[in-house]
């Protein structure tokens, strides 16, 4: 199917609102969309969302012969898949520019940066090693696939546990099932983070925006994808041209990326650890991607509206005129002092993106279409519906 065209009006409206300091989704220029991480019932499966962008990463392993050039290192292979599910114009089974680029970003950030301790994946030098296979599938393409894929991949790899093995005296290798012996976690030395900046030109002046949505990606002049880890190392840089930039602007973006990278890395680590400890303590088997554990895009949007309504209510209570506040804020933050815009971020993403906090507290209230015990939460549901009714009117 053909790509949905972006009309000239939409294009100009998007660009001019960015020139005016506003984004369609009410974010500040340096604000990253909400991150959630969910883990599957087995080890090494992670579904990450970055706003509406949704990526599934799955790690599997098998015993293979090592490369002759590196006899005591395990192998890691990464494959990126895009199906029409991600966006209707993508054709199944065919490589396209997006896949090629994502593959390059992931290869550099995860494979070439050697963030994974491949030597610990060796079973017997020159004989057998573990090969980890990382499959990254984009489920919904709503912009900034690089960051989302990187996020899901890193979380899946950190979450992954491989089965224990014993090597017999005669060199035979026995792989124990997860029930027989405790599986062994992978060891990731550093957490690679990927951050994307989009650039918009307003005459000679350049506006930098973080984490562009799909619409923004279609109208932006150029972008910079930085792969880095919180230790201060750059694992990949991709500024594929399409526009001219001053060196200083680029470098200042890269420098600023580090503060952000720290919080993102913490989010990932925290989410993985939370899930792993839960698996250890709770005797019940993890339910994985059950419907009630994942948040749909509709619910995400409703949650965004709820948040805005809550915020506005709070403002009214404090006798602040909401309209003025909202209009001034982005201008102050981004136009007058573009350098400091990041610091003025009121709520860093770490707080909002911690999986248990924001989204899932809402999720408890979320209506679940659960057949067996659907009736239990009727009360909650009604309350919720009243609320959503309110919000919609509020916004009108």
């Amino acid at each position, binding site marked *: 199917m053909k790509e949905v065209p972006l009309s000239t009006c939409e294009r100009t409206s998007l660009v001019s609102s960015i020139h005016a300091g506003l984004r369609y989704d009410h974010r500040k220029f340096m604000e990253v969309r909400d991150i959630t991480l969910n883990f599957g019932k087995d080890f090494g499966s992670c579904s990450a969302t970055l706003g509406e962008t949704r990526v599934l990463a799955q790690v599997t392993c098998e015993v293979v012969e090592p490369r002759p050039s590196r006899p005591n290192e395990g192998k890691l292979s990464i494959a990126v898949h895009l199906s029409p599910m991600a966006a209707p114009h993508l054709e199944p089974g065919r490589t396209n*520019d997006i896949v090629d680029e994502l*593959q390059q970003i992931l290869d550099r950030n995860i494979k070439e940066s050697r963030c994974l301790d491949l030597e610990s994946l060796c079973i017997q030098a020159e004989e057998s090693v573990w090969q980890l296979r990382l499959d990254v599938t984009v489920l919904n393409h709503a912009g900034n696939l690089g960051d989302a894929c990187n996020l899901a991949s890193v979380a899946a790899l950190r979450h992954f546990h491989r089965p224990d093995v014993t090597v017999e005296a005669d060199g035979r290798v026995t792989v124990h099932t997860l029930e027989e012996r405790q599986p062994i976690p992978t060891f990731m030395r550093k957490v690679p983070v990927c951050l994307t900046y989009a650039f918009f030109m307003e005459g000679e002046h350049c506006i930098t925006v973080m984490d562009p949505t799909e619409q923004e990606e279609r109208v932006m002049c*150029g972008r910079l994808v930085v792969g880095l880890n919180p230790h201060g190392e750059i*694992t990949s840089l991709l500024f594929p041209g399409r526009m001219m930039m001053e060196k200083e602007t*680029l470098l200042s973006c890269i420098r600023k990326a580090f503060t952000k990278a720290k919080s993102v890395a913490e989010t990932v680590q925290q989410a993985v650890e939370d899930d792993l400890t839960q698996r250890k303590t709770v005797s019940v088997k993890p339910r994985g991607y059950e419907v009630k554990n994942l948040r749909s895009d509709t619910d995400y949007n409703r949650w965004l509206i709820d948040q805005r309504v809550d915020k506005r209510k709070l403002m009214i209570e404090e006798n602040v005129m909401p309209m003025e506040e909202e209009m001034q804020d982005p201008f102050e933050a981004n136009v007058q002092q573009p350098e400091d815009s990041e610091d003025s971020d009121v709520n860093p993403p770490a707080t909002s993106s911690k999986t248990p906090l924001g989204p899932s507290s809402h999720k408890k209230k979320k209506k679940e279409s659960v057949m067996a015990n659907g009736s239990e939460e009727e009360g909650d549901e009604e309350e919720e519906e009243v609320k959503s009714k309110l919000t919609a009117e509020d916004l009108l």
Partner: protein
Amino acid sequence: MDVISPEGLRQDGRTPTCLRDISCRLGLYDRPNGSAYIEIGNTKVLAAVYGPREVRSLSKQNLDECVIQCEMSRIAACQGERVRRPRDQRTRALSLQIAGVFHAAIRKTKYPGSQIDIYVQVLQADGGVTSACINASALALIHAGVELMDYVVSCTASINKTTPILDVTQQESVTGCEVTVSMLPNKGSVVSLDCAHTLHLDQLDEVVDLAMEGCQQIYKVMSQEVETYLQDKNAVMSHQ
């Protein structure tokens, strides 16, 4: 083996901030609208430009500006190990990057509704392949007479412990990073930045600066070659 000897020289006898031998040539072939060849040390690249001409797939046509496409391929014996496929995911990703560079450099609005194809052939790869491809493509575009904002030059740099090194060979890039910077030398602005392997943030500034210096040196060689070519063809340089 150390990349830099105790005397401060690299394995091929260069100082850390010295470029390899560069030679380039314009106009090798008749069929393409523009063609060029560049040799940076042992890295050898051939580029051909076809266009501006009619857009081949109408769905890509843009009536405001031209479509720029790039395809990069490698010959089987371009490096130590035999390359099985002339094109793979890696070359496709690099092709995208090269096309992106020229999206910034070509005056696209001058050629509405048309297409410019850049084909790059890597004959021998020994570090700095992307930058050699970009330099060769720039020369081929100049030979084709496509309007550019400025020359486009590209150069690589790396860092060995604390010494930044310019124009790395394959062997040198194994131990460190490889930062490729492409820029418009007269405007001084960057059109592409690429980093493979890990590099520390504190060292980024030095490395990029060195690569940009290298770009200016390469620019001199390239513009010299273009001038000689024009003189040979008895063409007059309009701004002289």
